[in-house]
């Protein structure tokens, strides 16, 4: 007999005790990699992810340089001990796909035309993964890019929503991803109100789709505040003298 586990109990609590609209605990440390031009370490629930940016820097090989803008390269990679079963260090197809969508989620925010003939390299290393690692990776990469002083229109914040026990919930973890019904990672530039990453894995009715997208965007906005706070803390610490409210 197969036991169907309830992922949401009768009080609306999820298996890790969260409510439907609750984000996991997110903590960002800016400047975690000394040699990099910009970096951030993020703990997004049990995800532990390091993002490092080198750039703008010279493009090698030279023929890959673009005359009018910067080349953006992204690598999403998981270390072997980051998952339940050991992962081979060589890049998997999943990592290659995520590297691509990650790059495409960050590029709209960056002013690449300011750095012609140069390259910006973004490296995202997943040290421990627990559902939503690509969202956490994009979030950290965005902070690392700001830390590196790259000109950008806005920070990119990322968060997923999903369907679990027929309910739309925010920020699904690993178990909810494995046993749930749908997973929708989203990346968003809050000031511009633009979605830069959208994927769906699973089945959603039309109204569920809208609800899921809205919830994920709401999650992105929460993550955005945490990104800003982390950068302010790192650069300005407790100095608030210059801080003024501008309407």
């Amino acid at each position, binding site marked *: 007999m197969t036991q169907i586990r309830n992922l949401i109990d009768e009080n609306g609590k999820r298996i890790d005790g969260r409510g439907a609209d609750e984000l996991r605990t997110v903590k960002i440390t800016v400047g975690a990699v000394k040699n990099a*031009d*910009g970096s951030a370490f993020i703990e997004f629930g049990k995800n532990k992810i390091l993002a490092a940016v080198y*750039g*703008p*820097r*010279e493009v090698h090989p030279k023929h890959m340089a673009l*005359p*009018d803008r910067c080349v953006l390269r992204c690598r999403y990679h998981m270390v072997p001990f980051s998952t339940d079963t050991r992962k081979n260090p060589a890049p998997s197809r999943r990592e290659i796909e995520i590297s691509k969508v990650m790059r495409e989620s960050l590029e709209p925010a960056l*002013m690449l035309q300011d*750095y*012609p*003939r*140069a390259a910006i390299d973004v490296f995202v290393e997943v040290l421990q993964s627990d559902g939503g690692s690509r969202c956490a990776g994009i979030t950290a990469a965005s902070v690392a890019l*700001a*830390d*590196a*002083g*790259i*000109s*950008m*229109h*806005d*920070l990119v914040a990322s968060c997923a929503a999903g369907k679990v026990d027929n309910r739309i919930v925010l920020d699904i973890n690993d178990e909810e991803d494995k046993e749930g019904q749908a997973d929708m990672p989203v990346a968003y*530039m*809050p*000031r511009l109100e633009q979605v830069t990453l959208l994927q769906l894995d699973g089945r959603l009715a039309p109204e569920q789709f809208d609800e899921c997208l809205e919830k994920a965007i709401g999650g992105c906005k929460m993550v955005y505040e945490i990104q*800003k706070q982390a*950068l*302010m803390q790192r*650069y*300005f610490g407790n*100095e608030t*003298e*210059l*801080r*003024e409210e*501008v*309407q």
Partner: protein
Amino acid sequence: MHEVKRRYVVPGDKIAEGNFRPLMNVIKSGNTLIATRIGIAETGRDGVKVIPLSGVYIPRVNDLVIGKIIDHSSLSWEVDINSCFSAHLPAQDVFGRDFSPARDDMTKHFAIGDMITARIIAFDRTRDPMLTVQDRDLGKIPRGELLRISATRVPRLIGKRGSMIQTIEQATETRVLIGQNGIVVVTGRSPEGVNLAVRAIVMVEEEAHTANLTQRIKGLLNVPDTQPPQERGPLVAGATKPAEIESTIDEVEEELEVEGEK
């Protein structure tokens, strides 16, 4: 002194609304002015700008830089200027127009690893920066203690009309060469003086965005706060700076000094 509003910003932050001109590191979206980098935003009469606090050095024509010789072809040296592009120093600049690779030995002049002060004479979106060492005080740096700071902190280290760096030099009996690209070389008579100068420079870099910095630096150096630095001809690389940055530093220094007195 005209009204200037300042605040700390990160990319995407709204700085002001209204009929302001977007200046460096600021874009205008509709009626709103937005920061594109982390730094100190200034809203003034002439526009809105952000003084950045992080970022790799981007070369500018006329900048004085300190570079490292890393390679040479038969016609030029390749110089690492701590930027996103390598710079080139043509052999002709050193040997003259009738330079001949067969007769003139490039390695005798500059070896791999040598540090030089140079000026950027050409740079645009289509080619790497080109350097010259044909000015007074340019060329190989024979000795000194080497430091690297963020290029964004160089204006603060130089100070209003060179005041910050001169305060440090005089108090420690050192000479400090500063490249706009963030490379700094300190020479001095005594190791203690050099070490103290290095500590002061590191403090300026770390606290460039704060108020009362000059006071604290003077405290570190045991210099009375009321004593202004003696005027001296600038031996500092970066004496020629773009006017925009110069005026910004004047304002920042003034404003922060005033705030400190409150």
